């Protein structure tokens, strides 16, 4: 399927117009990939920078490595000509006859340009929008004007649109649950450092299992298609579960081993620590005895005076021995453990993102390229390796030229986020992506949407100092207009191209 030099030899003589369009396709594909790198990746990595888990430089390197490897190694080798099968491109032949491939190419150029433009506006305005929605909107716009409104599969469009309502809600709920569990099992404990060290292997196990699932069903999903395998076959499911739990167990024991090698910095011995209630009860007893002393005289007064003296000494000793283990230094030790977990999650999310979202740019690119080269219109288009490389290079370039600035601003503004919060948000996003990919009806989710929802979920679990709900409204609004905006831009570009090419 993969032909390094391109596709099968051209079936028709390529004219000057063809060459111009081929150049335009390459350029717009790169442009779209560049914008994906600038907008989407930044939102995924910003939380890691904001929580201090990664420095800006490291975040950019991690994102570049994982996005690129995701895009090039497992990026889809077979792309649907029209992302998410919004309409049947073969119908174009009924409308345009021999011009159909040219129309499709123009439509793909218009879609790529529209998605790229919209993403650029969004990045400039710093709206965290979904790249998938931009391209879907653009393709729908093209479909509407090229084929007519009735031939677009609106139920598919509706499902994708529903994704931006359902996925933040889902990831918000998951983030709420995850954060509550972490609060109860670590931060509520008398000695959070010890609790964190006890829980860490289990968390690592869970994280690795979930992330393996994400990788198998989302990150590597193009590979399943490539080898014509069904990931939901019992064998495949068992294999995935087996590999995931094996990796999880490796992580479990590795964490145990690492933790046993690094003893925590203990301030004073924790063994004789008293429960906080002890000193409080003693304090209460003192208060009551003082009241007794104030309201009595004679023998009772003298006796209460004596007992009070003893009580005071006991109370003082108890207060000194009461340990809470919740000083900021100890909490910092807990957060240190979460730093590694957050970095791990961020890597997997970047990988899954790269492998899936690169198709947003190179899917239409390959479709248009194939249409022009072979002069046919088909449902699927092979994606040559150079197209994947263009996508990967585009994403990394976008990250390097604009994305790092976005990551920097995002990171600088969310310093209130600690690694434990950041981990919860990213882990919840990863779980949501996994759930969405294994669900039978294939709910389309966007990394951006799930991440924003997860941040809100952590906030509702009393995890974040202050969340600006007005900004939330703006974010939702930008999500809502992404599909119409992509469609509108695409229509405009398509008409301009149509006039220029003369079809």
């Amino acid at each position, binding site marked *: 399927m993969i032909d390094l030099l391109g596709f099968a030899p051209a079936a028709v003589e390529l004219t000057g117009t063809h060459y111009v369009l081929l150049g335009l396709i390459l350029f717009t594909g790169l442009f779209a990939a560049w914008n994906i790198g600038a907008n989407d990746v930044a939102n995924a990595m910003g939380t890691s920078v904001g929580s201090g888990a990664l420095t800006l430089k490291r975040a950019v390197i991690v994102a570049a490595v994982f996005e690129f490897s995701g895009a090039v190694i497992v990026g889809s080798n077979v792309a649907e000509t029209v992302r998410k099968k919004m309409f049947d491109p073969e119908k174009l032949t009924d409308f345009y006859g021999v011009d159909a491939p040219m129309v499709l190419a123009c439509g793909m150029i218009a879609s790529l340009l529209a998605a790229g433009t919209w993403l650029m506006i969004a990045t400039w305005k710093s709206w965290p929008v979904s790249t998938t929605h931009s391209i879907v909107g653009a393709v729908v716009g093209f479909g509407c004007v090229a084929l007519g409104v009735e031939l677009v599969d609106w139920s598919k469009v509706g499902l994708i649109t529903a994704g931006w309502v359902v996925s933040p809600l889902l990831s918000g709920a998951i983030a709420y649950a995850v954060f509550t569990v972490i609060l109860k099992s670590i931060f*509520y404990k008398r000695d959070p450092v010890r609790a964190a060290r006890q829980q860490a292997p289990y968390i690592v196990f869970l994280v690795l299992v979930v992330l393996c699932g994400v990788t198998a069903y989302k990150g590597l999903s193009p590979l399943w298609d490539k080898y014509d395998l069904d990931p939901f076959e019992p064998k495949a499911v068992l294999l995935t579960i087996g590999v995931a739990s094996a990796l999880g167990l490796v992580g479990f024991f590795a964490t145990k081993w690492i933790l046993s090698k690094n003893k925590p910095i203990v301030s004073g011995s924790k063994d004789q620590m008293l429960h906080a209630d002890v000193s409080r009860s003693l304090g209460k007893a003192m208060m009551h005895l003082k009241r007794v002393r104030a309201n009595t005289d004679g023998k009772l007064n003298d006796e209460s005076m004596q007992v009070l003296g003893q009580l005071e000494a006991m109370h003082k000793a108890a207060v000194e021995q009461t340990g809470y283990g919740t000083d900021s230094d100890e909490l910092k030790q807990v957060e240190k453990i979460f730093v590694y977990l957050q970095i791990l999650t961020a890597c997997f999310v970047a990988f899954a993102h790269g492998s899936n979202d690169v198709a947003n740019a190179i899917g239409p690119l390959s479709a248009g390229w194939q249409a022009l080269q072979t002069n046919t219109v088909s449902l699927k288009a092979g994606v040559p390796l150079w197209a994947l490389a263009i996508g990967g290079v585009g994403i990394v370039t976008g990250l390097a030229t604009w994305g790092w600035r976005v990551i920097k601003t995002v990171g600088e503004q969310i310093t209130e986020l600690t690694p434990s919060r950041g981990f919860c948000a990213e882990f919840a996003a990863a779980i949501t992506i996994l759930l969405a990919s294994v669900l039978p009806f294939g709910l389309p989710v966007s990394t951006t949407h799930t991440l924003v929802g997860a941040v809100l979920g952590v906030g509702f679990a009393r995890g974040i100092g202050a969340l600006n709900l007005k900004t939330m409204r703006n974010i939702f609004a930008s999500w809502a207009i992404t599909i119409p905006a992509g469609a509108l831009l695409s229509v405009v570009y398509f008409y301009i191209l149509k006039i220029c090419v003369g079809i």
Partner: protein
Amino acid sequence: MLSRASLRTGMKAEVPGTEGRTAVSTIGKLFGRSPFNLLQRHMDQVARCVAKMGEALDAFEQQKFDDLPGFAREVSRMEHEADQIRDDIRNHLLRRFFMPVDRSQVLRILSQQDSLADTAEDVCVLLTMKSIRVPEDLKESFGKFRSLSAKCVDLAASIIDELDELVETGFGGAEAEKIRSLAHQVAFAEHEVDVVEHEFVRGIYARDTELSPGEFHLWMRLTHTLSQLSNTAENLADSITMVLDMK
């Protein structure tokens, strides 16, 4: 505590100003500025006011009456600075912010902190009204009264100082227990203040014929105002226990 206080005061007062920057991230803007650091900054300033009031009371006990107006001016200035921090918080505590603690509770904590500074200022001003001497045999109980009142405020300040840990641990668990036990200590200290205050007032009443009406009245007002300090500190501690997640 001091280094932390200076750290907090060194914090740049931005957020609304970020709109002027070229690249403002919407995701970044989603995170408002946490009100808890600001509350701590305000409490640090309030604690400084109360400490200055302590110096003024030292001078008062040593009958250095000429120094008192200077102290009163200084405490007034510090109280004004605290007010500026308070206004800053009120302006930042936008209605659209979603916080782990109800907005009205944050505002109540803030106003209680604020009234501590006001009380300290009132005490210093009262000291300048008329040069009165502490009766020799009441010196001890007056000293106990004022130092216990200051202790109450210090304890309340130590609770506020734990706020960032409280946010970190999600307002529950061991940290919440710790806060609650601190609040009990404040309540206990307040009770102690009441006891010595009554003792001292009894002493003043015992010499109502020796004191001039003006002196007597000033003593009454002074003790009453000073006792406000521990009462407010106790209320402040109570307000904080209200936001805890208790089983």
